[in-house]
């Protein structure tokens, strides 16, 4: 009856924190080629709640960490994405989208200007595709290096700053989307104040051979517990954040996905470096004329979660969209979801029906995010 198939194949890779997951009794699954923890002994609901109440440590070492150096790094990278990187200040981080010729999204990523070079964090499942894209399309004075010897640890939650203050006092001076090279518990790290939960927090890039030591130092605080991919997914869903491969992919554009805010002014029509990236014509047209479908929040009535791939119909029974992410929001204490619907059905409060196991269940279109973000902006 349980249909969870933990496919622990021999060729799936271990992260530098594999032993930690074992110590904490993690349930492991194969995810994007890595053996990753879904949850630990406390379970997804408690790990989710603990992240909102205190702080959680997430192993996100499966994500791709890439260094891009050379004097043409920014201008060369700008030819692949609709984001202003030339104007990105030192130690500033920006959310970015790599586009294709149809204006679709090849990946979403974080780009940080580390001074000497750009530091990129890309999705684990898109690592190979991104590297192939970079290798064939970046040119000029541009050096690409995949940081295979580093782990990535996210510390997320309202207690994260106090924990970091003890281990790296200067880290708490950072605001949301700022970065610094600092020693954390005496280990040289590169940190950013960002994350994927809607909470204040940090992502810490650490040498692989020191990752266990750093995780131990973070977990020595009574406020910090480990949390797995299960809680990470429900936290980001409540925070209205997209998961690549579900909520955004090669067939969805940034405008349809409600990610207009990620399109830098300088790269939009009329901007100082307008266009010059794949799909600019499509994106420009959509910015001007609107889109036929859009990403929205969905709140199902009752307690039953509505999962990805579920069809949405209007009152007349006509199909108007599809759920792309759905589950149980532990903080809102009920089911929440995201979907693409026809723009005419996308207004907040619109009543639709989700076809779950052949039965129509009432849902309504809701504003994203489902929980208020608590980023440290000032």
């Amino acid at each position, binding site marked *: 009856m349980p249909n*969870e198939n933990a496919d622990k194949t021999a060729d799936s890779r271990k992260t530098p924190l594999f032993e930690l997951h074992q110590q904490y009794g993690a349930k492991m699954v194969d995810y994007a080629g890595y053996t990753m923890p879904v949850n630990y002994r406390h379970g997804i*609901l408690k790990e989710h709640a603990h992240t909102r109440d205190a702080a959680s440590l997430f192993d996100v070492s499966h994500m791709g960490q890439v260094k891009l150096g050379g004097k043409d790094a920014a201008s060369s990278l700008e030819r692949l994405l609709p984001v202003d990187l030339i104007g990105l200040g030192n130690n500033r981080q920006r959310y970015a989208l790599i586009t294709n010729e149809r204006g679709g999204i090849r990946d979403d990523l974080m780009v940080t200007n580390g001074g000497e070079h750009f530091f990129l964090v890309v999705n684990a499942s898109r690592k190979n595709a991104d590297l192939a894209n970079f290798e064939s399309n970046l040119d000029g004075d541009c050096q690409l290096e995949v940081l295979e010897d580093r782990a990535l640890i996210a510390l997320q939650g309202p207690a994260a700053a106090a924990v970091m203050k003890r281990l790296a006092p200067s880290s708490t001076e950072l605001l949301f989307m700022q970065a610094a090279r600092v020693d954390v518990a005496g280990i040289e790290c590169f940190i950013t104040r960002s994350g994927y939960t809607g909470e204040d927090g940090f992502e810490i890039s650490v040498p692989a051979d020191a990752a266990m030591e750093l995780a131990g130092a973070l977990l020595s605080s009574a406020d910090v517990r480990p949390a797995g991919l299960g809680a990470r997914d429900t936290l980001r869903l409540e925070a209205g954040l997209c998961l690549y491969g579900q909520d955004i992919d090669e067939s969805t554009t940034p405008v349809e996905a409600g990610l207009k805010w990620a399109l830098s002014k300088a790269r939009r029509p009329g901007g100082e470096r307008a266009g010059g990236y794949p799909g600019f014509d499509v994106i420009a047209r959509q910015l001007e004329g609107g889109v036929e479908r859009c990403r929205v929040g969905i709140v199902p009535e009752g*307690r039953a979660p509505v999962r990805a791939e579920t069809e949405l119909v209007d009152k007349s029974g006509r199909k108007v969209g599809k759920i792309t992410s759905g589950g*149980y929001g532990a903080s809102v204490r009920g089911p929440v979801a995201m979907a693409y619907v026809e723009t005419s059905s996308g207004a907040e409060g619109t009543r639709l029906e989700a076809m779950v196991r052949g039965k129509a269940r009432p849902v309504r279109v809701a504003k994203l995010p489902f929980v208020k973000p608590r980023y440290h902006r000032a």
Partner: protein
Amino acid sequence: MSDIKFTEDHEWIRMEDDETGVCGISDYAQDQLGELVFIELPETGIEVSQGSEAAVIESVKAAGELKAPVGGTIVEVNETLADEPELVNKDPQGDGWFMKIKVQDSSELDALMDEDAYQQYIDGLD
């Protein structure tokens, strides 16, 4: 109280008397599913056949179902599960029972596993 029996799909049934059995999902099943957030039980009075879907189970991670371990008529359901699905995680083979079935053909019970056989069966799954 007679012996508990298990299906390969991780349901259990325990006969309360000659004709009525109480059933639910095994401890192994609840552990695999993770924390339950929603359970939809059948209406009493309906008839189910052995192996047919009788209840819907949703956990934080996944959707699943309870298949009727034997055929018969649903005579009672555990209404508390609607508000407290977590009871199934806490006590899957006790307070977390799903429903009672008036068994149509008691020979269907013979095909199910006893506790030892089920333990061996799940040991072989890991």
